[in-house]
């Protein structure tokens, strides 16, 4: 490494972020590659390298002899300054070519607060920000949860992938390869792509004002609706045999097994629960094979079972039993994420022998039964108390509880009930735990997300967020409690961007131009900058009328709008809707619309 390069990296925080050359990376000869993807993750290296979707797409694309996928992450501010100072371009970690030299630059849109980083990466990569300013390739494409309301980013992207990328990257690449071969114009290529399943090309839609929103209307014969694409059988779908192994600690340094996709518990606030339907499991047999191979190729010492609700897997007991024992001898342990709130799950956690008893996390979400029914969080007070008792009896002394404030119909009583519940849990711990218990209460503010039954709800005004947080602070004084929350301003921004329309494009651009980066990092987020560029706060304080046209109406998750309306109505009656896996079908429309099936392996679900 030459002196200049060494000196430059010595001057930045965590230089290893920019080094690349990790174990299992794939580097192809440029002349063998017909279509080259730059998979772009708009957050720092460590965060991006923990993301399973990126691993899947990287290895899937690279499994094709004529396709290549390389990785690029958002440079931290110090690195950005270096690049700008010397006029360097943001490049991938593999071939170190700048983004503008790729055929496709694909962004993973995991949350709304990453949007200024997307713009920054395009700019640093030598790519004009607005689609209409670009000529030829690369195409800028976006996928992930954020793509389900693509309108705020419509000015900057050529295409969005609606749904699970595995199904779309191959046909998409084939069309791009053909366009390159036959020298199609950019316009012709985009028109073709717009007719491929799951691909939304925003420039072929005119944003027309309908009530309070600008809503896309198709031009040039573009499809009126874009239907989500999905993997029909997770069991048969592609899963990498290798993971790229970062040199530095990523957020998740382990073999990640995706045990299931989708969740049909039906929590009414939950975006993921609506957009990833239906539930598709992977079998224990398949997971065993994948774990075996991945442990050999990565050298990791931990396995993690990932899904939206892992403990709902129909073979969860067998999974836990097998993976907590199978590799014990070589020091490989099992990590169980998110536990469902019942004593069955505490028993599972107890079985995972390598778990250090550092803490268990539960998510009651709301303090009162009434409000839990409103949001369809199907747990009751007894379940909760039994679960924490079981945890304390088994030796855990630290319990973390997740709640939300600002949920529809919430009153001060509901907020106070959060405090009371935390106190009750602490009291139970004092009676049963081996040592003095410690209760962490994490309070998020509800953000209404598109495609959910709560998509019409308002966001709490800032003054109310602060007042309710203070209310809890007063109730949970003392060393036994640790109270944490997100800043109200960034939550509200998330709300604005999540349900925004095309008119937000200039504001996002202006925020980036004024220096907004890493908005999801609380110490980087600048509320004044954003309030400057967003006049009127985007109207998030008001709810949306049920009959109002929505900017994401043309994007179909498979779940019918009428179902969302019905669920919203039921929420006002505090009526719950059971998980369709165990009970009857509630007619959300997903399976029929997507010609998909719920896929469950085990027998009776516990």
């Amino acid at each position, binding site marked *: 490494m030459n002196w200049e390069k*060494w000196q430059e990296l010595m001057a930045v925080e965590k230089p*290893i972020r920019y*080094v690349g050359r990790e174990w299992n990376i794939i580097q192809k000869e440029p002349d063998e590659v017909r279509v080259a993807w730059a998979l772009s993750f708009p957050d720092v290296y460590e965060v991006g390298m923990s993301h399973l979707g990126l691993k899947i797409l990287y290895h899937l694309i690279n499994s094709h002899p004529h396709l290549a996928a390389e990785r690029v992450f958002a440079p931290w501010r110090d690195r950005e300054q270096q690049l700008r100072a010397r006029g360097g371009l943001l490049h991938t970690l593999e071939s170190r070519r700048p983004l503008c030299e790729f055929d496709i630059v694909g962004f993973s849109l995991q949350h709304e607060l990453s949007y200024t980083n997307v713009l920054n990466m395009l700019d640093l990569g030598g790519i004009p920000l607005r689609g209409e300013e670009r000529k030829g390739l690369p195409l800028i494409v976006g996928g992930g949860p954020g793509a389900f309301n693509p309108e705020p980013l419509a000015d900057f992207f050529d295409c969005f992938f609606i749904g699970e990328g595995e199904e779309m990257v191959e046909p998409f690449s084939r069309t791009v390869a053909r366009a390159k071969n036959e020298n199609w114009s950019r316009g012709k290529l985009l028109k073709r792509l717009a007719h491929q399943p799951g691909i939304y090309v925003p420039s072929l839609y005119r944003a027309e004002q309908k009530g309070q929103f600008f809503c896309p209307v198709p031009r040039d014969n573009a499809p009126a609706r874009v239907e989500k694409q999905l993997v029909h059988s997770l069991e048969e779908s592609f899963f990498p045999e290798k993971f790229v*192994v970062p*040199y530095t600690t990523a957020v998740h340094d382990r073999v990640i097994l995706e045990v299931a996709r989708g969740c049909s518990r039906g929590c009414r606030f939950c975006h993921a629960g609506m957009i990833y339907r239906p539930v598709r499991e992977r079998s224990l047999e398949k997971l065993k094979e994948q774990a075996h191979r991945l442990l050999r190729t990565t050298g*990791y010492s931990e396995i993690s079972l990932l899904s939206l609700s892992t403990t709902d897997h129909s073979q969860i007991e067998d999974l836990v039993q097998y993976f907590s024992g199978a590799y014990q001898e070589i*020091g490989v342990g099992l990590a169980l994420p998110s536990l469902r709130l019942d004593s069955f799950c505490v028993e599972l956690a107890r079985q995972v022998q390598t778990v250090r008893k550092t803490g268990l996390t539960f998510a009651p979400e709301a303090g009162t039964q009434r409000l839990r029914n409103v949001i369809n969080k199907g747990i009751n007070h007894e379940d909760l108390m039994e679960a924490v008792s079981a945890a304390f009896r088994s030796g855990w002394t630290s319990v973390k509880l997740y709640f939300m404030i600002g949920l529809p119909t919430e009153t001060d009583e509901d907020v106070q009930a959060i405090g009371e519940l935390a106190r009750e849990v602490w009291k139970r711990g004092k009676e049963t735990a081996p040592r003095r218990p410690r209760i962490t209460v994490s309070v998020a503010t509800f953000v209404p997300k598109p495609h959910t039954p709560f998509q019409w709800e308002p966001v709490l005004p800032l003054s109310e967020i602060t007042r309710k947080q203070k209310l809890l602070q007063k109730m949970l004084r003392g060393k036994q409690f640790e109270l944490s929350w997100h800043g109200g301003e960034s939550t509200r921004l998330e709300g604005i961007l999540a349900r925004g329309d095309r008119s937000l494009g200039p504001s996002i651009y202006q925020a980036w131009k004024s220096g907004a980066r890493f908005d999801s990092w609380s110490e980087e987020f600048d509320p004044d900058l954003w309030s400057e560029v967003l006049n009127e706060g985007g109207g998030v304080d008001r709810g949306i009328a049920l009959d109002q046209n929505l900017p994401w109406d043309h994007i179909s998750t498979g779940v019918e709008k009428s179902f969302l309306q019905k669920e919203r109505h039921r929420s006002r009656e505090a009526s719950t809707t059971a998980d369709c896996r165990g009970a009857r079908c509630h007619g959300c429309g997903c399976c029929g619309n997507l010609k998909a099936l719920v896929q469950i392996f085990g027998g009776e679900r516990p």
Partner: protein
Amino acid sequence: MKIRVRHRKLGPLVFLSQLDLLNTMLQALRRAGIPFALSEGFNPKPRISYGLPLPVGAGSLAEYFDLILKEVVAPGQLKEKLQAQLPEFLRVEKLWEIADREPAIQARVCAADYYIWMPVLDAGAQEHIEDFLVQKQWNFLDRRGREKDLKKLVWEIEFLKIKQGLAGFKITAAAGSRENLRPGDFCELIKKSAKGSIGSPGRILRCELYYRGSGGLLTPFSGG
């Protein structure tokens, strides 16, 4: 069975922290299927210990670690197996068996060789360095605010002249748990003494570690 490994740490991998290096090595050992022993207890850990931590940004031709295996294996095969799972920048130089009662390398290290290069900013550098080298004491205020005489820690020093805008030094200095020269401290001191003629950071390459033996300094592979 106990083995000792000597490997390089070069190129872009000089930016690995000591913890990153340890994790990377453990992953390679696991991929290679090398049967290392685990500690007893609730949270079993591999029984590995590195010689002497290296600052981030510094390279090395001589990183050493000791590892306890749970079964007897031919060391020759191990070297190849491990090498096959490591990037070229962490090339294994030597791998050999050591006596079970051989103390951990960490406990015995007393000195290290370093090459150090510092960026030269103006023509005054040569003279400043020559003045510096003949000073009786090299007083330095360390990070914790303690004054130390670095001259006592530097056993040998050779000024390699100024080439391509870099002033080079080869030093043998105290290293280990009892007395230790932080090479970064040495760079800072030279920079200060040169009154603006020399810049930072200094680039460091470690070339060897030493034990104190009956006949003088021994390398970790000269045995007990």
